């Protein structure tokens, strides 16, 4: 083995050096391992649910078990996988590198965030081991606060604690992006990933406290045995929904905005072109973050909320679709007159756009009041948000992991395998979730373990798709692990990409840059493509 130059991975090997690290790159990897753990549990729960739904009868698991499975799946996927996925893993790794900083603004706080996340995860996991929770991830009162006989309080405590981790991560990014940029790196020279992380951090910081207080009120009500969401005391259960969705709708944008940031990095790189409409893409992230706070009531169109409030929320929900549409248009326009190659990250990104467009357009169906009355609480909604969160966010996460894998590990992954599994993922995903749109319009309610026989054919299709999707997730896990030892070594910039993170070694040294970089050009300054000659093939695996 040739001697490697000193980098953040090989400085020290002790467990202590990892558990007490304040290096943002190592913390990013700690998050990666942790969320992988929760992803596996949550995916396993999903697998069991899909198996149960093969037949209309509730024959594999009891209704109680099924209810606990979808709660585990929801809670772990939302709070312990999706929300920390791109922000805490890729965000932690990349934000300081992309802005030319030595670390985030508050490195010890960053480590504390991870510990809070792990502690929250511990309580949540412990609640599952004790017997689980059967409220669904939404914890609607009064079921959660009064009627459920499961470990609601402990799971809520876990989410509450992990929430503080989120808040501190968001705070760290906001200050880092505000104050730690390298000389010359003005706002409009920032990579779009940074813009989207900034927008995400605003949501993390301003929405998560409301979740914290909501869960606190619900928990106190449960412990005290009496409370303000309890109709027996004159409380209004719908008020809980207002508070819950004030966080949980913006949380959807926590899940999708970073994915959009990843896409905005990868498309220019594989088209060898400056992104089209930089400022519009940048401001659309901020617009999504802000308008995203104004639309939560569209989860409550049939909740007995005032119909006039429903109309206001419907209008605002239509408006929030505009900035997302602008992004898709600009990504498409970026391809125009580019020099496009189809390595795995690009394939994942193209898959992302396909799935996100379907998810976004079906979002319009749900924003349309009268249609929502029919499809609310059915599989149509399930399909819609999986298209956004799994089709969107997880696909973007895969794209990002592949794109920055050489930077993170210093190794190249096997390209052919990666391309193959990107395609498998796309096919499996569509087969799993597209039939659910049909099921939803047919009227199959969500959160049921048995259903009318006429729905079976679509459920069988969906379960078949889920197995393919499972392969699509398992394959990368295998070949990425394999590449850690056996992949060819990556040089500083295997994709010939623009961006500060590629101007340092792979893996980067502990302090990121040998000397503080000075920035004189815009983001995505790819060399102009003047001739009609194709650019030379790049030397990589």
């Amino acid at each position, binding site marked *: 083995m040739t001697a490697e130059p000193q980098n953040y991975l090989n400085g020290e090997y002790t467990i202590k050096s990892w558990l007490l690290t304040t290096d943002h790159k190592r913390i990013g990897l700690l998050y990666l391992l942790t969320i992988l753990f929760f992803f596996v549990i949550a995916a396993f729960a999903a697998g069991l649910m899909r198996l149960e739904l093969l037949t209309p009868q509730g024959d594999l698991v009891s209704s109680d078990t099924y209810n606990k499975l979808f709660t585990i799946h929801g809670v772990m996927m939302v709070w312990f996988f999706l929300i920390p996925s791109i922000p805490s893993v890729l965000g932690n790794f990349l934000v300081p590198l992309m802005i030319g900083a030595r670390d985030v603004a508050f490195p010890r706080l960053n480590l504390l965030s991870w510990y809070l996340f792990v502690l929250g995860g511990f309580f949540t996991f412990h609640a599952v081991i004790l017997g689980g929770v059967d409220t669904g991830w939404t914890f609607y009162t009064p079921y959660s606060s009064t009627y459920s006989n499961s470990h609601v309080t402990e799971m809520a405590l876990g989410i509450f604690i992990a929430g503080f981790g989120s808040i501190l991560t968001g705070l760290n990014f906001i*200050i880092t992006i505000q104050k730690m940029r390298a000389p010359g790196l003005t706002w409009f020279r920032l990579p779009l990933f940074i813009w989207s992380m900034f927008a995400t951090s605003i949501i993390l910081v301003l929405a*998560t406290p409301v979740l914290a207080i909501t869960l606190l009120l619900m928990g106190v009500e449960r412990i005290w045995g009496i409370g303000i969401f309890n109709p027996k005391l004159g409380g209004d259960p719908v008020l809980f929904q207002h508070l819950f969705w004030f966080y949980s709708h913006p949380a959807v944008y926590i899940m999708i905005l970073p994915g959009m940031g990843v896409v905005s990095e990868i498309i220019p790189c594989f088209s060898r072109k400056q992104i089209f409409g930089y400022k519009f893409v940048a401001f659309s992230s901020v617009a999504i973050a802000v308008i995203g706070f104004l639309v939560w009531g569209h989860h409550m169109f049939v909740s007995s909320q005032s119909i006039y409030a429903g109309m206001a929320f419907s209008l605002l929900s239509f408006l929030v679709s505009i900035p997302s549409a602008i992004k898709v248009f600009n990504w498409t326009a970026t391809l125009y007159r580019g020099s496009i190659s189809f390595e795995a990250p690009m394939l994942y990104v193209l898959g992302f756009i396909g799935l996100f467009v379907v998810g976004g357009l079906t979002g319009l169906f749900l924003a349309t009041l009268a249609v929502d009355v029919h499809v609310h609480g059915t599989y149509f909604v399930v399909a819609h948000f999986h298209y956004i969160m799994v089709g969107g966010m997880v696909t973007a996460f895969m794209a990002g992991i592949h794109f920055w894998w050489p930077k993170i590990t210093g190794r190249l992954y096997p390209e052919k395998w990666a391309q193959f599994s990107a395609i498998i993922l796309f096919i499996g995903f569509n087969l799993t979730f597209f039939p659910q749109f049909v099921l939803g319009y047919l009227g199959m309610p969500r959160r049921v373990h048995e259903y009318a026989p006429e729905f079976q054919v679509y459920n069988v299709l969906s379960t078949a798709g889920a197995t393919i999707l499972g392969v699509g997730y398992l394959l990368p896990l295998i070949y990425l692990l394999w590449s850690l030892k056996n992949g060819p070594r990556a040089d500083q910039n295997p994709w010939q990409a623009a961006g500060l993170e590629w101007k340092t070694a792979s893996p980067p040294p502990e302090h990121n840059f040998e000397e503080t970089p000075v920035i004189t050009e815009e983001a995505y300054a790819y060399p102009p493509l003047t001739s009609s000659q194709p650019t030379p093939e790049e030397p990589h695996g």
Partner: protein
Amino acid sequence: MAERTTTIAKQFEDLPQQREAVTLGMWTFLATEVLFFGGLFLVYSVYRHFYFNAFAAASKHTDVVYGTVNSVILITSSLTMALGVRAAKLIQYRNTIRFLLLTVCLGLAFLAVKGFEYHKDITDRLVPGLDFNPDLPLHGQIFFWLYWTMTGLHALHVIIGLGVISTMIGLLSRRNGRPVHAHSIENAGLYWHFVDIVWIYLYPLLYLVGRHS
């Protein structure tokens, strides 16, 4: 919250950058606190709108004397905190310690008064769910549920604030310790003033509803 290093932390270029980052970080944290308490105020407002009369009737059972005394104590402690921060900026560490100690005393006084008040509330049977005073309307329980939750969370913040200030005093009075950055003390001050601001709203909403009739 603050990186309480006495020199420049390695991730920063210079002291002004560090100071600005730390101050901005504290303000961002306070914004999250605004939304945290804001959720409670929202719940309060909704039920006040629903049960206007019950809230007025229930509020009369709070002890306005304790509440008023505590308000004055907390406002005064904000002054001593501001004076302490001022002294720290002028590098008068002895004065800083004095003012911070005064602030801690006032904070403890606040908690003591709160303790007496809670005791009185319990003997007056104002705890919802536990043998609640039957003279009060049903929805008065919602008022008192919120009263306990809001003042309880506020008191928790007071305790945390006292912990932070005491830590600062400890750091300042270490004989051989390196000097503490003024911005660390400033941040403790910001937190303390925020706790004061929360009380500014709790006081009229909990103690003064329907006082005149």
